[in-house]
C-alpha cells in the first residue's frame, strides 16, 4: 500500500490583507496518525488544512511532507488529496468518471482508468451505483464516493475538511467509524478538520485545538481531556470548569489562588509569582455536592439550572466568580439527594481533580 508521510508545519502564517488568519504555527503530525484540527469557526483550522493541501498560499513559513518541502508545490504534486466539505463531486459525471477524474487528467487510458475507478468504488462498496450521478446518492454515499476519488491518487496524506458536517447525527457516527477503520487499514496520515469535540475525541490520535489563529494545545485526546493546556481548551472541550483569579501563595508543589469574589482554591503546580493571573480547571464529573473537607477544594453556590440527561444529571451553579459552574452527577447520586433551582449547595472536589491551566503568549 502507499507510504504515509509525516507532515511538518514550520512557523506557518496566513495573512489576508490586514487580518492574520493563522499566526506562525508549528506542528509535527507523525506519519500514519489520525490528526484532528478542532476549534470554533474562524479559528484558522480550515486555512491551515488548505495550506497543507496547497489550495491556499502560505504567507510565511514552510510545510514539509516526508522529506520534501512542498510550500510552493501545486496541490496535485504534494502527495496529498483533499476531501471537500460538500464533497465537491462533479455533478455532470457518473461515479466512475468522478473517481477516475484525476487519472484522466494524468492521461491514463480510458479502459485502464475506469477499471481502477471501479476497484476503488468496490473498496467503498459503491460498485452497484457506479453509473449513477452524484445527485442520485444520499449524503453517506456521496462521502464514500468522495473518499474513493481522493484515495485513487494513492496519497500519502488525506485531508478532510469537515467531512461529517453534512450528515445527520446517526450517519455521522457510522461514517466516523468507517473513516477510522479506513485510516487504520490504509495506514496513511489523515488530517481532519472539525468543530465537534466528540468527533475529534472519537477519531484522533492527536488533537490540535486552535483558537484565533494559534494552536492552544496539540496532544493525544487523553492528554487534552485530562490536562487541558489553557483555559480556552478547558472551556471548549467542556469537561472542566474554569476558575480565574490571582496567585496568593505557592510552594510545596501547590499553588493557592484567590478569585475576585474572595474564595481561595488550591491546585497542584509549580511555584508562581504572587499576584500573577491564573486559571484552574476543575473536572465537571468529579465535583460532588458535599461539604468540602478542605476549604480550598470547594465552595458554596446557588443552583441555577438542572438538566436531566438519563445516566447523568447536569447541575449548573453560580458562585466563585463563575455563573455556569457545571456539576455532572450520576443519576444515582443525584436522586439520592436531589437539588432544585435556587438551592444553596456545597461543592467539593479532590486536589487531583483540579488542573493548573497555562496561558499562551499572545
Amino acid at each position, binding site marked *: 500500500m502507499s507510504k504515509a508521510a509525516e507532515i511538518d508545519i514550520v512557523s506557518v502564517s496566513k495573512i489576508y490583507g490586514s487580518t492574520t488568519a493563522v499566526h506562525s504555527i508549528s506542528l509535527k503530525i507523525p506519519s500514519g496518525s489520525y490528526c484532528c484540527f478542532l476549534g470554533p469557526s474562524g479559528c484558522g483550522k480550515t486555512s491551515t488544512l488548505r495550506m497543507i493541501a496547497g489550495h491556499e498560499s502560505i504567507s510565511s513559513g514552510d510545510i514539509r511532507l516526508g522529506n520534501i518541502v512542498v510550500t510552493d508545490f501545486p496541490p496535485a504534486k504534494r502527495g496529498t488529496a483533499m476531501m471537500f466539505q460538500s464533497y465537491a463531486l462533479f*455533478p455532470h459525471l457518473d461515479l466512475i468518471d468522478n473517481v477516475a477524474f484525476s487519472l484522466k487528467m494524468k492521461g491514463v487510458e480510458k479502459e485502464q482508468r475506469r477499471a481502477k475507478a471501479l476497484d476503488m468504488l468496490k473498496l467503498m462498496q459503491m460498485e452497484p451505483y457506479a453509473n449513477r450521478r452524484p445527485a442520485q446518492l444520499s449524503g453517506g454515499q456521496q462521502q464514500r464516493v468522495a473518499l474513493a476519488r481522493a484515495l485513487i*491518487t494513492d496519497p500519502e496524506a488525506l485531508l478532510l475538511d469537515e467531512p461529517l458536517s453534512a450528515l445527520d447525527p446517526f450517519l455521522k457516527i457510522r461514517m466516523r467509524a468507517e473513516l477510522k477503520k479506513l485510516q487504520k487499514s490504509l495506514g496513511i496520515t489523515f488530517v481532519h478538520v472539525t468543530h465537534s469535540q466528540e468527533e475529534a475525541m472519537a477519531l484522533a490520535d492527536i488533537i490540535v485545538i486552535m483558537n484565533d489563529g494559534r494552536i492552544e494545545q496539540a496532544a493525544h485526546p487523553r492528554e487534552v481531556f485530562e490536562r487541558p493546556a489553557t483555559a480556552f481548551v478547558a472551556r471548549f472541550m467542556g469537561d472542566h470548569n474554569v476558575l480565574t483569579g490571582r496567585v496568593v501563595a505557592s510552594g510545596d508543589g501547590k499553588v493557592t489562588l484567590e478569585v475576585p469574589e474572595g474564595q481561595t482554591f488550591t491546585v497542584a503546580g509549580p511555584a508562581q509569582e504572587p499576584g500573577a493571573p491564573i486559571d484552574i480547571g476543575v473536572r465537571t464529573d468529579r465535583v460532588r455536592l458535599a461539604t468540602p473537607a478542605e476549604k480550598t477544594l470547594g465552595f458554596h453556590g446557588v443552583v441555577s439550572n438542572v438538566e436531566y440527561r438519563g445516566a447523568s444529571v447536569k447541575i449548573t451553579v453560580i458562585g466563585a466568580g463563575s455563573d455556569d459552574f457545571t456539576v455532572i452527577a450520576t443519576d444515582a447520586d443525584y436522586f439520592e439527594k436531589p437539588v432544585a433551582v435556587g438551592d444553596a449547595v456545597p461543592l467539593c472536589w479532590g486536589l487531583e481533580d483540579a488542573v493548573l491551566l497555562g496561558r499562551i503568549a499572545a
Partner: protein
Amino acid sequence: MTAAFTEDETQIEAAGKPGLTTRIGRTAAHLASYLQAVPLALILGFFFLLPILMIAVVSFWDYDFAGLYPDFLTMNYTDTLGSWVTWKTYLNTLKYTAMVWGLTLLIGFWVAYFLAFHIRTTTMQMVLFLVCTVPFLTSNIIRMISWIPVLGRNGLVNTTLIEMGIIPQPIEWLLYSDFAVVLAMVHLNTLFMVTPIFNTLMRIDRSLIEAARDAGANGWQILWNVIIPLAKPGIAIGSIFVVTLVMADFSTVQVMSGGQSASVALMMKNQMSLLQYPAAAANAVVLLIVVLLMVAAILRVVDIRKEL
C-alpha cells in the same frame, strides 16, 4: 392549491358532512386555478396563437395584385419550396446564423468567463455586467447604422489606414458585404450569449474547481472537463436566443449588405411589399418549422431544465 383544499376537506369532514360539500369544495378549487390561468391564456391566445393560426390559414389562400381569396391551395408552398432562390436564401441565412453563432459563443463565453471567474467582488461583477448592457439603451437600428461611418469607403477605418500608409486605397469589403452583416449581427447579439452563460458560470460551485485542481487538472483541463460541461445549459439558452434572432433578421442584412445579400425574412418583407401576403405567409410557416427544428435540436443535445 392542494394544501388549501385538503384543509377544506378535513374541516368539512370534521363537520360530519362529507359527500356533496367536499365535491363542491373541490370543483371550486379547480375553478379558482383555471381562473388564475385565464389572463395569461387570453394574452397568449390573442397575441401569439391567433396570429400564428392566421398566418397558417392565409398561407393556403389564393391572391392576385388586387386581393386575397380564401381557398385551400398548396401553390404557395410549392412555389416557395420549388424555387432555387428560396433555397439559396435559406443557405445564405444559415451561413449567417452559423457564423454569428460561432462568434457570439466564442466572445460571449470569454466575456462571461472573465466576469464570473476573474472579477473578485460581486459589486464589480454587477457594475461590469451593467456596462455590457449599456449599448441596449439605444435602438438596434441606430447601433447598426453607426457602423456605416466607421466602415464606409471614406470611413474611420479606411481613412486611418490610408493616413498611416498601411493601405494605398480604401478596403471595399468593409461595408456592404457579408463581413459587415456578420460584424453588426455579432455586435447586436453577443449580450444574449453573455447573460445566460454568465448566469450558469456563477452557479458553479467553486469547490468543484478546487477539487479538479486537487486531482491535478491544469487550467485548460478544468475549463474543458468541468466548466464547459457545467455551462452547457447557459450555452444552449444563449444559442437559442442568437439562432432565432439571426434566422428572423431582415433589417441588419438589408442595411449592412446594402441590399446585396438576402435573408429569409428579407425575402418575406419583399413579398409583403408586393402584397403577396399568402406567399409571405407560406414562407413564414416554413421558416417557423425550420427554426423550431433547430431549437429542438439544441434542446436534444443539452438538458436546460436545470436552468428554468
